Structure formats: C-alpha cells, structure tokens
C-alpha cells in the first residue's frame, strides 16, 4: 500500500480496523476526538459497531463485556477520561481479558489542559486502578509507530489476555505524518478464543469473573497473574537505540514525543563537538532496564527528559542504581521543550 499522509488519531483508528477490531466504545475528550470520530464513520463500513457511551465508566465496562464475548475491541481517551476508566481496567485485568486502551495524554492533574503531556506514566505502568495488576504499555514516537504499535497491542492483548495501553500524547495524536498499513487482519481469520462466553451449547460453561471470595483462591489467582507479568517481562521488552556509541558524552533517555525532540538535539550537539545518544524505551512496562544499563555504561552523563515533573526517571534510577547520577529535564502543563533546550541542558551538564 502506498504511503498516506494521516493525522495520528485517524491513523490509530485505521490501525485498529486493520488489526481486525470491529468494536469501539468511548466518550469524547480533546485531544483524541478524531479517533472516535473516525471510528464512528469507518466501523459501519466494515460491519463493525461504534458506541458512544454515557460515560467513560460505562465505556470501560462495555469493553469488559465485549472482550468477554471474545471480540477484539478498543477504546481511546485522554488523561481525565482514562482515570474514569480505571474501574473497568482493573476488572478487565482481574478477569484476564484482552482490551486495547489508547491514551492520548494531556496535562493534569484534574481537568488540567488539552495540550501534550506525559504525566500518566505512573498511572499506566504502575497500575492505575486498584489491585495487584499490570498492563503492557507501548509508547509510539511517530505516527507510523503508533500504527504499528496499535496493531501489536491487539496481538499482545490476545496473547496474554491482558489490557494493553498505547500511550501517546497530544502531539502524536494531532500531528500528520506519512504512514503505511503493513498488515491487514480480518476478524474471521483470528484464532478462536476457547475461554470466551459465546453460549455454552455443547461445551462446558465458561465463566468470566474477577471475584474470588475464598482468600486461598484469590491468592492463587494473584500469583498466576504475577507469573504472566514475569512472562511479559521476559518476552516483550522493546526499545530503540539512536547514536549509541562507545564513550558518549551524554545519553538521553526519553520516550514518545520527547525522544524525537532529543534526536534533533543530538544532531545539533554534533555540530558543537558533543557526542550524544538516545535510549528510547518503546515498552514502558515492561521497562527495558538491562538494555538501558548496557547503554548507560558507555556514557559520561545521563539526562532523562519527559513532559512531566519526573516519572520515568524513577525507573531509570531504579535500574541504574544509587551510584549513578541521573539528571532530569522536564516541561509540564502542555509546554513542550524545544531541541535547543535539550542542547542547553546537555551542555550545562557537561560543564
């Protein structure tokens, strides 16, 4: 297929359709309204269904039902809306159902603003809702990668029977870039889900539930989930290394939008005779800690940059240990740093 120029949000919508998803439940919120808008027009054309729920709480519980019935389904929202969905996400994690959640992050807390932010890192990677659970978290930094990761998200959700986040920000959602859709999956070609509640005629009844009143059963269930998360950590870490060389002056650690700004900064630093590289986690959970450690062993200084007051930086510090100094530069509230700011920070750090 030839490359098309598409807005991030619309490309995400089309990616879901190309992944064989035929159901969307959601509620509008800026800056991701183009996703539901696109799905509402596109899904009926391919025999799917679009539902605008009365609230995000409902939407997430509709997803719980649809996923339980074995259907590929997804929703998209932005930060305050994702907070409202946490009830459903916790239940979906507990009941082990595959659902894709796209969060086009905006500034918070509370209603915050509508401009780009990365302030939901903790929420996405450390739980968000109640209970001892984890979600896979994929963070695109281009529109093409948003497409590829949405398609991957559906695969991983099915593979692990687990909720998967695609964590973008307002910039990824609103920007247009060339994209191509490399794979197309038809719903009828998807493998059967023998655990789904599809009517128990001629087979044993399937039960989908997150309630375990017997503590022994619940403990067993919790350890079983933990085992699954260990499998994810073993198999699913993804990252990009950009300009990683021996004896780097500075190693940037950044994800999503900030990572691409860092790439421009790295090119600019070259002209100043400063050798900089970038380590970009693509999966935020599981966090590619060992790989970061390896890259960090080749640099003098480490500079973590985020559109937050410092969230991923905690994971970086955790993996690199107490003895390694880690600098941080963040912009918040919808303000996005320029490459020049990162250049200045790197220069300052090396003084």
């Amino acid at each position, binding site marked *: 297929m030839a490359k098309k120029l598409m807005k991030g949000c619309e490309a995400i919508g089309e990616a879901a359709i190309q992944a064989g998803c035929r159901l969307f439940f959601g509620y509008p919120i800026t800056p991701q309204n183009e996703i539901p808008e696109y799905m509402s027009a596109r899904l009926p054309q391919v025999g799917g269904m679009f539902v605008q729920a009365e609230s995000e709480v409902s939407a997430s519980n509709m997803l719980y039902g649809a996923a339980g019935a074995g259907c590929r389904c997804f929703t998209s929202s932005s930060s305050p809306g994702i907070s409202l969905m946490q009830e459903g996400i916790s239940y979906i994690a507990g009941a082990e159902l595959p659902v894709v959640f796209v969060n086009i992050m905006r500034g918070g807390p509370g209603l915050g603003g509508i401009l780009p932010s990365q302030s939901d890192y903790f929420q996405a990677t450390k739980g968000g809702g109640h209970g001892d659970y984890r979600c896979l978290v994929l963070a695109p930094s281009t529109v093409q990668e948003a497409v590829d990761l949405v398609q991957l998200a559906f695969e991983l959700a099915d593979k692990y029977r687990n909720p998967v986040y695609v964590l973008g920000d307002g910039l990824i959602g609103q920007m247009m870039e060339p994209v191509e859709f490399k794979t197309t999956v038809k719903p009828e070609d998807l493998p059967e889900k023998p655990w789904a509640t599809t009517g128990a005629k001629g087979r044993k009844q399937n039960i989908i539930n997150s309630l375990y009143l017997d503590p022994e059963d619940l403990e067993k269930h919790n350890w079983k989930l933990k085992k699954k998360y260990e499998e994810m950590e073993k198999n699913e870490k993804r990252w990009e290394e950009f300009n990683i060389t021996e004896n780097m002056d500075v190693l940037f650690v950044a994800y999503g939008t900030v990572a691409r700004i860092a790439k421009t900064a790295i090119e600019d630093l070259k002209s100043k005779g400063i050798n900089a590289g970038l380590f970009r986690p693509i999966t935020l959970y599981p966090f590619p800690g060992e790989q970061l450690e390896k890259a960090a062993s080749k640099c003098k200084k480490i500079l973590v940059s985020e559109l937050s007051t410092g969230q991923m930086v905690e994971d970086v510090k955790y993996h690199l240990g107490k003895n390694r100094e880690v600098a941080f530069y963040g912009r918040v509230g919808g303000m996005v740093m320029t*490459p020049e700011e990162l250049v200045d920070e790197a220069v300052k750090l090396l003084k």
Partner: protein
Amino acid sequence: MYKEIILAGFGGQGVLLIGKLLAYSGMKMGNDVTWMPAYGPEMRGGTCNCTVVISEKPIGSPMSKHPHGLIALNLPSLDKFEDTVRKDGVIVVNTSLINRKVKRNDVKVVEVPANEIAIECGSAKAANMVALGAFLGATQIADLELVKNILSESFASKPKLIEVNHKALTRGYELAKGV
C-alpha cells in the same frame, strides 16, 4: 533538503489546508514530512497556525522555533512570527490584510494582495491558495504542477472548486517567481 515552514492566519482562512497541501507535496517528492497544527483553545475568528517540516532524513522535532519560511495571512500572524524567521528565510505577506511593511531586512519578502487576487480568480476564499502559490514561486520548494495535481485529488468531491483554486495558485506563483 530540510525546511521548516509556519503557515498562519485567522481561523477559517484555510492555513491548515495549505499546510496539508505543502506537506503532501513534500511527501510525494519522497521526503519525510510532518504537519503539526497549533491545537490550543483556538476558535473561529481567532488566530490559527500550523508547522510543516519537509526533510530528506527522518524528522525529529515537528515544531519550529526558527522557521525557514513563513506565510502570514493576517497582521497578528506577522507580528507573532516575523522575528522567528531564519536569516535569508522567506516571508509571504498578505497585503490585503496587513497594512505594514516587514521590519526585517535579512529575509526575502514577498508581498501579495491575496484576497484581491482571489476575488479576481473567482472566489475570495482562495486567498490561501494565492499565498501558497507565492510561497512556491519564491522558494521553489515544490513543483507548481505537483501541488495542483494534489489539490485536484483532494478536491475530487468538489470539482467546481478546482479551477478557481488552480487559478489562484498560479497567480500567486507568477507574482512571486520574479521576486
């Protein structure tokens, strides 16, 4: 090639559309491109702008602090972005709505009465196309025929509008080519 261009005007003047045409042209020429709208709480009648980056290599930051080119369709846009344009950059000024001169003397300035020319072409709404044509003429960033073809494709459902917009693009282009 590596170019950052800011296109700015009132909401409704069509700066997002000409930005898309420019980005699409860049893509058709085999480049990486980004198109980034300012999507704050803008409203109709307020100011509106987008940034287009066209590059042979993969694009890092899609935003621009110091663009190579500026299309200013109204006065607030010129006021806001004039000082940010790089030395030897290009500024297209819509003199129909901007009653002052560009203060910089280290940039190439193209003055076009875009609204008047658009009316002559058959529609006042095509002022954005006159300005884009002028930008193409002054910078040769993309081939005029390529941009016209892309416009024909994207206006396929409104064939009546194609001719007017083609005319507006050409008039702007011719006016700027000699500058």
